């Protein structure tokens, strides 16, 4: 089933988070004004990205990454028009121009550049089509999304949006239990690591901020990034009441007996 919407309502980092957590395979197409981006995923990892105006062949990618000279790039392009990217890559490796890791690094760098470009897009329609992958001859480099989401979150500027996402700093955090998450492979800043080291259901976010001399905006930004990457989740601080304090004037739910609920269940089943 295709997912579609607009970036006004669902940001790119939120989309990446969904694709990551659900380990989706397919292509995310984003149309914005006169530009289109196609971002491919396989089992929740980024594998390829193309955007109008930034598409370049393998030779250009290698040149941009400093692996080959401009002249070499021109020669390769003129002679390799009938080859797929994979075929071209093999030819270049066999000819000694580059190594396999040069190609992987260049493609990875280009893919990330394209993706980070789209993080500035706050408007535009998106469509995720499952099970669509790049053309057979394309070179794909699987990239974990957690770091990309963290970086995307770092680029989020709106203070108001952060307040929206995290209105209450009296809640605590704990690490998620995700078998696919590899904390070792995740790159965090010094500040982010400091926050990570304080994560404990006993510590509210406010307390963590105070311990690290961070203001509300800074701690929100860091926690939002960790939440978006699926590394942590919100919990009530330990020692807090399980049942939240009811505001004045709002009555508690009626005391309910099991028998009453069973009667309701039986009745609804007979509808």
């Amino acid at each position, binding site marked *: *089933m*295709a*997912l*579609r*919407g*607009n970036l*006004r*309502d*669902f940001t790119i980092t*939120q989309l990446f*988070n*969904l694709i990551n*957590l*659900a380990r989706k395979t397919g292509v995310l197409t984003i149309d914005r004004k006169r530009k289109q981006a196609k971002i491919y995923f396989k089992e929740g990892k980024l594998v390829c990205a193309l955007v109008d105006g930034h598409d370049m062949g393998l030779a250009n990618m290698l040149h941009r990454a400093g692996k080959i000279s401009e002249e070499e790039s021109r020669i390769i392009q003129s002679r390799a028009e009938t080859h797929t990217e994979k075929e071209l890559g093999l030819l270049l490796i066999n000819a000694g121009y580059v190594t396999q890791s040069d190609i992987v690094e260049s493609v990875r760098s280009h893919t990330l550049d394209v993706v980070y470009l789209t993080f500035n897009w706050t408007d535009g329609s998106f469509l995720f089509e499952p099970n669509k992958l790049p053309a057979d001859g394309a070179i794909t480099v699987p990239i974990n999304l957690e770091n990309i989401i963290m970086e995307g979150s770092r680029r989020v500027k709106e203070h108001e949006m952060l307040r*929206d996402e995290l*209105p209450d700093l009296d809640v605590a955090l704990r690490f998620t239990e995700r078998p696919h998450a590899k904390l070792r492979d995740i790159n965090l800043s010094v500040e982010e690591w400091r926050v990570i080291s304080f994560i404990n259901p006993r510590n509210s976010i406010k307390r963590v901020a105070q311990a690290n001399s961070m203001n509300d905006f800074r701690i929100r930004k860091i926690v939002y990034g960790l*939440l978006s990457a699926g590394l942590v989740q919100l919990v009530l601080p330990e020692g807090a009441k399980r*049942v*939240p304090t*009811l*505001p004045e*004037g*709002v*009555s*508690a*739910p*009626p005391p*309910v*007996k*099991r028998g*009453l*609920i*069973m*009667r*309701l*269940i039986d*009745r*609804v*089943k007979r*509808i």
Partner: protein
Amino acid sequence: MQTVKVVVTGPFSSGKTEFISSISEIDVVSTERKITDDSREVKAETTVAMDFGRITVDEELVLYLFGTPGQKRFDFMWEILSEGMLGFVVLADAARPETFREARMIIDRFRRYSPSPYVIAANKQDHGDAWPPEDLRIALKIAPHVKVLPCVATDRESVKNVLLELLYSILDTIQGE
């Protein structure tokens, strides 16, 4: 006779009226509530339409279904409607992601009003553009223990399933105490 209440809420046009209509034994009544100030003197009458349905269990027990007003200007009614409810259903229009933020806001508001159990109904699953429940769960950041259910509000069996799952959640809460 004992009466119990379930609230059906969600963003504007998410299918609340259809949901209640599908399962109510009476035609869904749009009730007009007169709003008064704290002193209960009617100073300036303001009326608001709400959906109201009923399921009679037996001579001694009746379940009422209240649909919250869809228009944002009547959101002050939510707190009033949540008083004494057994639980609530949040209907999300799964085919309109532009409403997800509002659905999230509604969930947070109702959770502050009451600790009652709730379920999320990912409505309009018969639409080609509808997000599946598992994707909606991630989009709305719903905790793992909260049920996110497929729903077609015009389909009685689908609505029954949602209501039953809410009742099971309420039962779990009682048995857990």
